[in-house]
């Protein structure tokens, strides 16, 4: 499964995408440390973590999907549907919060399964399928609640998941860490992960090579659905309210983090740790800007703008280094006498 790029002629370590992102994060932190108010305090770091867990979870499972060359636009809507399902199972069906949470996970898995079935059985393009379920899931959530009903007054034991601390760290951070480890192992340490990349790199090639392409795709989309259900549970616990507009716009935030993290939108290459850095870079930027008092009124707009600029810059830098290294490689393959040494 080796692409020529990873063989020998890989970019130098300081040009690797993850390193560039780490530097960006370092600059962000150092900058906000100096100009932002109370930026580096433990309480604020906890804020950043708590507020990025749901989008982070979606970004984690979006990574394998994009690695296969696909996309899942429905995860934010599915989060909303699972939140409503959770609220109804708890309030209307009278289940305990934890059984209701299990129900929400099942709804998420089924939602992801629906995407998977349409994509693998009917061979429909993921963009179209998930654009459809994007509207379908949100529409269902709104239909169940009439658009206005909200579920509230959950027991404190459940709210601790989104608002409590365990061993000095927000409770949901542990859940996030477990999922992150699981997805990282899946993508980087199993044959599943390699097949995701193979499918994204050359779907037909993967099929001819005997890979169970449909099965692997189904796994990626179903996993995305299940984790959207998990994110819904954490979201409801954090916001202490379940309503149909939960998770609105989260799918694009997740995709942004994945692409910023260096995963190619065409599939085939990328990493889970890159995605984690992408999530961190965006979350730190948004939080840090809101701590500069003089611009606090426009910090939200500014952070959207800068996130966009950062994404474009990262993509442009990636494309540029690739072009440069290809040019260098082609020069090196020529006889040395015909070209001067590169500076």
């Amino acid at each position, binding site marked *: 499964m080796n692409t020529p790029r990873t063989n020998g002629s890989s970019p130098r370590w300081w040009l690797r995408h993850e390193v560039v992102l780490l530097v960006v994060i*370092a600059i962000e932190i150092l900058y906000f440390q100096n100009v932002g*108010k*109370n930026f*580096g305090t433990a*309480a604020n770091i906890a804020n950043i973590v708590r*507020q990025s867990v749901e989008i982070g979870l979606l970004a984690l499972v979006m990574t394998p999907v994009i690695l296969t060359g696909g996309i899942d636009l429905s995860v934010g809507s599915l989060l909303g549907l699972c939140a409503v399902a959770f609220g109804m199972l708890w309030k209307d069906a009278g289940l305990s919060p934890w059984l209701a949470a299990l129900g929400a996970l099942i709804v998420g898995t089924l939602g992801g399964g629906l995407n998977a079935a349409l994509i693998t059985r009917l061979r429909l393009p993921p963009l179209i399928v998930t654009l459809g379920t994007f509207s379908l899931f949100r529409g269902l959530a709104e239909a169940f609640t009439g658009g206005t009903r*909200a579920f509230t007054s959950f027991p404190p034991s459940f709210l601790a998941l989104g608002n409590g601390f365990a061993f000095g760290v927000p409770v949901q951070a542990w859940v996030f860490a477990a999922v992150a480890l699981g997805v990282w192992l899946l993508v980087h340490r199993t044959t599943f992960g390699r097949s995701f990349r193979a499918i994204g790199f050359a779907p037909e090639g993967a099929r001819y090579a005997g890979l169970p392409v449909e099965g692997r795709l189904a796994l990626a989309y179903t996993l995305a659905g299940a984790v959207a259900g998990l994110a819904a549970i954490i979201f409801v616990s954090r*916001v202490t309210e379940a309503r149909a507009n939960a998770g609105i716009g989260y799918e694009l935030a997740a995709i942004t983090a994945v692409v910023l993290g260096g995963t190619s939108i065409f599939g085939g290459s990328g990493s889970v740790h890159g995605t984690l850095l992408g999530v961190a870079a965006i979350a730190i930027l948004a939080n840090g800007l*809101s701590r500069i008092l003089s611009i*606090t009124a426009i910090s939200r707009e500014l952070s959207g703008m800068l996130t966009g600029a950062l994404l474009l810059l990262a993509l442009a830098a990636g494309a540029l280094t690739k072009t440069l290294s290809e040019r260098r490689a082609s020069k090196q393959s020529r006889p040395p006498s015909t070209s001067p040494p590169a500076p």
Partner: protein
Amino acid sequence: MNRLLPLLAIAALLFSSCNKPADRAGADGGGAKKLTIALLPKSKGNQYFVNVEKGAREAAQELGVELLFDGPTNTDPAKQNEIVENWITLGVDAIAAACENKEGISTALKKAQAAGIKVVTYDSDANADARTFFVNQATAEGIGHTLMDEAARLTGGEGEFAIITATLTAANMGAWRKTIEARLAEKYPKMKLVDTKPCDDQKDKAQQEAANLLSAYPNLKCIMAICSPAVPGTAEAVKQAGKAGAVKVLGLGLPSENRAYVKEGVTQSVILWKVQDLGYLTIKATADVAKGKLNPGATEYDGGKLGPIKIEGDNLVLGQPFIFNTENIDQFEF
């Protein structure tokens, strides 16, 4: 492994730099400094809250208070909570909030209270234990009485009138209708409420219902629209029926949405509170709560340029609603 080393070095650098500003936060906490008040709107781009902010800025300048204004730009229900949580760690002295999701935001506001931050709500309340005071723009009585008195003034105190509401079940509108009916029974014996129709908070449906009312009750003198989309909807129906001026239209809504109809003489009166004053009073009261000058149990409050403000329980009442008509509607932008 060689590749990982520089990464680890950078990570270590970041980690070590993270601990520094904790002391600064401590240093910031003490001392009598300029108060910092954070003002949370339901949504940031909404003209209504833009005007709240204007009034708030005026109060902040007058009092020498640092004002932070930030709110959601979309309907993500987590945003208000996140903004409040960030204000807590920012170390603001007080928060004034208009609550989109009552229950959800109350969790975050209680966290703020636990961190020693004073909380006041305005426009739409949180749970009572999540704030010290609610700056109430208008009581049900104030709204109901103003609407009924104005309807009587427009019709000369006699004749048939009808009401268009959002739904027959909405709690606030139910309360308004009750006070309207009580006022009617008490003061205007020659007026008769012939019908009350719901419009589901939709302009089109309000227009339809108003048209039906006009044909069903040929002697109708006045239509009172008590949810904001119903005011222009009703006006459009009256205009199309060619009854502008003959059937009076009044309602509870935004001046900006009704300006054209008011100028054409279709709608006579639009009733709402002065939104800028709401922002002004909110910041003034929040500052005084933070300074300990305004405490639970108080029954009256000096509203500065607004004069004395009545306190009912833990509600500061802005006062009687304001009536917008041809003479003054151009002075208001919201």
